[in-house]
């Protein structure tokens, strides 16, 4: 009875364990709101509401047959939607739905634990899915909630605040060990099983390009990768980040070519080399990016192809970082192979007839390859072409329509048109997609390249010089090279993003945030076996290996256990005195100045007697106060806040003359 009273008095009524289990599971569902289809989240919410109402009002709950049918139906729906149950999204959706169904048959403590376990699994899936710094507080909250639910299920009398407090304190004690384990638990290079998570590509450049395709990408403000240069930063006009190279053109769409048998032409470096480190965000595609032109492959798992693309053997599903070396200006040493020339001069027969005609005329006027390259650029510059992110859709003969009808386009359009014009004149040419420029973050000292920096340009073969990069967009919208897409085409972004970049203060803040994110990404997300060895060598271990890591791990564990043993020996501090007790202590201190101090065994009434014996003149007021305290403290009603405050005032107002007044005769 007393326990119930004290709980209701503190306003923390215990939630039923079922509600806690629902909260832990519901928190997990919320973490996946963006990833799973909306109907799955809605189904979970509905099932949770149903179960809670049923517990409250005694609503009908379905029997085993209906539950089985529902489970089968949901599995079928997920299978129909994702065509697999193995991928991360499909698996998460299935877990979500099955746990929600489990809710309907939750009756025992064991069932509630299963739900909390589902909450933990959803949290793990969320961690696997997204590792952004901004989401970690959500993950921490969910972990806290699940642990509090464990406490509440184990001890149903626990109040909400008590459960949260208990879980919070326990997690706080666990955090140091978690950190030590994180730093020193030996990580494994490589993985146990293949990746079932590449459901769809997240974002980024693909291996085909239709005019207009890149325009969609440009509206995506997410970072593609970050770059830290070892030496001085190259100027903005040199920052061409080379991605997929597209050779095959069907008149409408550019595609990558199979070219594994082709030999990579050697190049000579004609300028300064650039060394830098790239931190690539996951795209679930095979492309790695490097400054035009990469000199070598940064990793054994990545091939440098004959046309200088970096193609990884596995799609990028986790953030990766790599050291790269590039030569910004080069000269090709080897001649172009016959097969290569055939590939890069091929145009599908019968397409874009007017463009071919134009090429013939321009070439005749120019008289040579090099002159023709410049002449086409001149044509594009003078021809009244406009740069737009939302050009009109083009038909089958896309280049004809662009050059002679719409005359508006984007980098993809112009690169495509330029390469077509070159091929029509028999000059080998292809389209290169990638990124241009990037935003320098002075706080973090890195360049951040976003999806919105996506770009396309052309490369043409000039005898004697080899492959030459030509960026037709540069002549149509020269500002594009020096400034971001945002300044060029304000309409491409939402109002909030424009605002963010318009204000110096806000963009400073954004840069700071990105610098913090970069630190997070470099030191936490990309923390691996190599980083562990680095850490050990910084701690003073010479040539560290897995054995040292094991020692460090053991030492850390022992250290923490010693800390825990010490912690266990400590007792909780006594509660600080409340207002009433503080007032009483003040009274005792004041009385101790004029009478003997209160002995530890004396209660208020007894002490009043002691004081009265010492100072008979103060008998009445002191006794009254002491009795009032006893009444408030030990009386059946207990002291309200107002009563305690009034008592404290009375104590402060009590007049205690130093000396007893002379006895009146």
């Amino acid at each position, binding site marked *: 009875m007393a*326990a119930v009273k004290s709980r209701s008095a503190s306003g923390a009524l215990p939630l039923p364990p079922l509600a806690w289990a629902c909260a832990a599971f519901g928190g997990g569902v919320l973490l996946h709101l963006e990833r799973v289809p909306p109907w799955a989240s809605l189904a979970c919410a509905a099932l949770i509401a149903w179960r809670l109402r049923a517990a409250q009002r005694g609503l009908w709950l379905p029997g085993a047959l209906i539950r089985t049918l529902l489970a089968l139906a949901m599995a079928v729906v997920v299978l129909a939607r994702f065509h697999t149950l193995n991928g991360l999204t499909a698996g998460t959706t299935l877990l979500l739905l099955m746990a929600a169904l489990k809710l309907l048959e939750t009756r025992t*403590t*064991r069932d509630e*634990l299963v739900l909390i*376990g589902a909450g*933990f*699994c959803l*949290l*793990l899936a969320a*961690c*696997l899915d997204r*590792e952004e710094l901004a989401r*970690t507080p959500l*993950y921490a909250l969910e*972990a806290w909630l699940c*642990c509090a639910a*464990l*406490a509440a*299920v*184990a*001890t149903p*009398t*626990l109040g909400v605040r008590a459960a949260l407090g*208990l*879980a919070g304190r*326990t*997690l706080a*004690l*666990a*955090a*140091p*060990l*978690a*950190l030590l*384990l*994180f730093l020193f*638990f030996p*990580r*494994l290079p490589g*993985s*146990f*099983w293949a*990746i079932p*998570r590449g459901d769809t590509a997240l974002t980024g450049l693909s291996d085909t390009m239709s005019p207009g395709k890149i325009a969609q990408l440009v509206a995506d403000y997410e970072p593609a990768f970050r770059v830290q240069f070892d030496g001085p930063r190259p100027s903005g006009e040199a920052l061409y980040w080379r991605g997929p190279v597209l050779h095959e053109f069907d008149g409408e769409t550019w595609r990558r070519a199979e070219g594994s048998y082709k030999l990579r032409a050697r190049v000579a470096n004609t300028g300064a080399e650039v060394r830098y480190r790239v931190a690539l965000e996951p795209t679930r595609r095979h492309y790695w990016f490097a400054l035009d032109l990469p000199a070598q492959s940064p990793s054994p798992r990545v091939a440098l192809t004959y046309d200088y693309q970096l193609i990884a053997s596995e799609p990028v*599903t*986790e953030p990766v970082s790599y050291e790269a070396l590039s030569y910004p200006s080069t000269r090709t040493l080897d001649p172009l192979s016959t097969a290569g020339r055939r590939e890069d001069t091929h145009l599908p027969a019968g397409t874009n007839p007017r463009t071919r005609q134009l090429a013939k005329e321009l070439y005749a006027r120019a008289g040579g390859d090099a002159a023709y390259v410049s002449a086409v650029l001149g044509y594009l510059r003078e021809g009244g072409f406009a740069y737009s992110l939302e050009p009109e859709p083009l038909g089958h003969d896309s280049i004809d329509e662009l050059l002679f009808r719409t005359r508006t386009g984007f980098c993809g359009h112009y690169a495509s048109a330029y390469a077509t014009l070159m091929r029509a004149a028999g000059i080998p040419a292809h389209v290169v997609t990638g990124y241009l420029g990037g935003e320098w973050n002075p706080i973090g000292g890195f360049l951040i390249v976003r999806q919105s920096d996506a770009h396309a340009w052309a490369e043409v073969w000039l005898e004697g010089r080899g492959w030459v990069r030509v960026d037709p967009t540069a002549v149509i919208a020269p500002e594009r090279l020096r400034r971001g897409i945002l300044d060029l085409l304000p309409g491409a972004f939402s109002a909030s993003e424009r605002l963010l970049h318009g204000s110096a203060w806000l963009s400073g803040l954004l840069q700071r945030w990105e610098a913090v994110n970069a630190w997070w990404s470099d030191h*936490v*997300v*990309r*923390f*691996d076996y190599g980083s562990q060895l680095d850490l050990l060598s910084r701690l003073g271990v010479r040539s560290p290996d897995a054995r040292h890591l094991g020692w460090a791990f053991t030492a850390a564990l022992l250290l*923490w256990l010693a800390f*825990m043993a010490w*912690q*266990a020996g400590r*007792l*909780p501090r*006594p509660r600080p005195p409340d207002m009433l007790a503080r007032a009483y202590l003040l009274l005792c201190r004041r009385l101790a100045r004029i009478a003997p101090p209160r002995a530890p065994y004396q209660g208020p009434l007894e002490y009043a007697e002691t004081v009265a014996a010492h100072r008979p003149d103060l008998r009445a007021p002191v006794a009254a106060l002491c009795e009032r305290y006893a009444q408030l403290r030990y009386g059946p009603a207990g002291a309200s806040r107002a009563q305690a405050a009034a008592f404290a005032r009375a104590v402060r107002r009590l007049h205690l003359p130093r000396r007893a007044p002379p006895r009146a005769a």
Partner: protein
Amino acid sequence: MAVWVRARQGEDALPVRLERRRLYILPTRGGVAFGALVFAMLIAGLNYANSLALFLTFLLAAFALVAMQLCHRNLLGLTVHSLAAPAVFAQRPASVMVSLENPQALPRPQLGAALDTLTESRIDLTAHERRTLVLALPPLARGLYRIGRLRLAGTHPFGLFRAWTWLHHPLELIVYPAPAGSLPMPGASGRQPGPHPRGGAGVDEWLGLRPFRDGDSPRQVDWKAYAREAPLLVKEYQPAGSDLRLFDFSQLPMKDTEARLAQLARWIVDAEAQGERYGLMLPGEQIAPDRGPEHRHRCLARLAQFGGTPVPWPR
């Protein structure tokens, strides 16, 4: 395990303070499942080389270790002052009283006590609190039960681990036969085999001396004996005219032993309630007439053990 523990710890002398060497701890089924979950998380985290997933794994593993420590601490230092098993009638809920003290300023919720595999009874102890945990037992058959071992356990705070201790303290639970039967109580006829009545009718009968009990009138105290440094004794008299009843097992008409015992129990309870003096005759033994709660207990306990041997529990 239990045998090993018994040999290791020996008999306990109350009060017992729960020290480290007598506390045992193992994961519960939920704890094992939690461990499996954390292991699966570790594999997934290592496989995907995902730092956040690994940190979560390590956090949960550390959380379980802290939970283990807390669970152990929840019982550590607790003092068991006494164990008692009040006698009950058969078919009525029995109980064992465990007097527990929390000597520290640490609240200790969800302390449970259990016999064997029976359901736990739980209490919460606040700081410095001393309370009695009532371990509810199911209704039992008549007999004397020797409780050799009591388990004190707790899964607080997270239910991942169970810490427990065994208390080996001899404890006897007497279960009286359930009173039943409707035969009339034997009257004065039962008087002859009893002790000789002393004194004449109309005068209170002098019965003898017995030790002083709370509530006895000072007038009845044998002050002369007390002055001779004898213990405080009370002169007992039988009020004139009150009955002296003797309940004889062999004179009951029923054949069934249990029915006879039930009838005897009925008579004892009724006679005690009416403030009468009664004695009990069983084959091979008898209890002299007396009254009072102690006498009642002596009689009923004799009935409880009639013809049977003490039942060890756990078996």
